[in-house]
């Protein structure tokens, strides 16, 4: 399984449609403080089915919608689309390319899609569960948490690995 691309539109500071194309190997994301790098990490977490907004530096869905700035109005929708290369059959779907999409509206409505078909949030969560989230997305400042967590929590890392 490979990440192919991440399309972000309206999620946090990405008010305009933005694409990250990933290759094999290592992709580095660089930029000044506050430019939006961690927001990319949170967009990936969100599209993979994150349901705890406290893990996205927020408290509710509204917090991930582009909130506007002194020069730009807030947006009413956030959409993140993840495109995966499944040609090795890692995910149990009959497609060599899989798209996972998540949309949230200021009205409170949410949509979840796999390859364009509407699904529920838990369908996305079940699809992505084998990807091992606890050791696949390491948030900023959480390196220490890996070590300083109470031993019982650290055990959680191993159980995901098991």
């Amino acid at each position, binding site marked *: *399984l*490979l*990440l192919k691309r991440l399309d972000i539109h309206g999620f*946090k*500071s*990405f*008010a*305009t449609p*933005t*694409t*990250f*194309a*990933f*290759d*094999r*190997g*290592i*992709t*580095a*994301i*660089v*930029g*000044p403080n*506050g*430019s*939006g*790098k*961690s927001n*990319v*990490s949170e967009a*990936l977490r969100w599209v993979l089915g994150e349901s705890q907004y406290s893990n996205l530096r927020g408290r509710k869905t509204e917090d991930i919608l*582009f909130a*506007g*700035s002194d*020069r*730009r109005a807030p947006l009413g929708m956030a959409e993140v689309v993840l495109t995966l290369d499944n040609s090795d059959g*890692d995910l149990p779907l009959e497609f060599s390319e899989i798209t996972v999409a998540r949309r949230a509206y200021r009205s409170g409505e949410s949509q979840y899609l796999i390859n364009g078909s509407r699904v529920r949030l838990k369908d996305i969560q079940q699809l992505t569960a084998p*990807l*091992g989230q606890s*050791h*696949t*997305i*390491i*948030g*900023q*400042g959480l*390196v*220490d948490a*890996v*070590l*300083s967590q109470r*031993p*019982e929590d*650290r*055990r959680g*890392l*191993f*159980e995901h*690995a*098991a």
Partner: protein
Amino acid sequence: MANSFSETFTEVAAEFEQTFKRLFGGGTAKLSQRDEEDEPGGVDIVAQPPGKRLQGLNQLSGGERALTAVALLVAIQRVNPSPFCLLDEVDAALDESNVVRFKDELRDLATTTQFVVITHNRGTIEGADTLYGVTMGDDGVSRTISLRLDEAIQAVEEQQTASV
């Protein structure tokens, strides 16, 4: 085909000793399980950077703690690789020579695991195959440009000299 916790734990512990040695350029570290009766699920780490004595985690320096955490994450990846892994500034506390060993370890893992690393570190940037720059305009909107390695290094250095 999920292994039992203790099978996986034993494998991760063995791997952790190796990854610690590589990242620190020596030394030893041990991962151990605590007694199930008085502390079920407890996991302990002791570490001995090269030339130093055995210490608990709280006695290590800021950079040594960060590198030990990376060693554990890498060990888990090697025992049960996930297809991709995103790391957000896990190298922030590392000095230049530790950043190089960190970058070398990622390059080795990158043959089987796809990495996305968010970083301010030049050494880490030099290890990347693909580079994206992210900037925010006066309008509070983030945008991205793909960069070549020399452009990314220059952007980091220009920012520095321009403001000096």
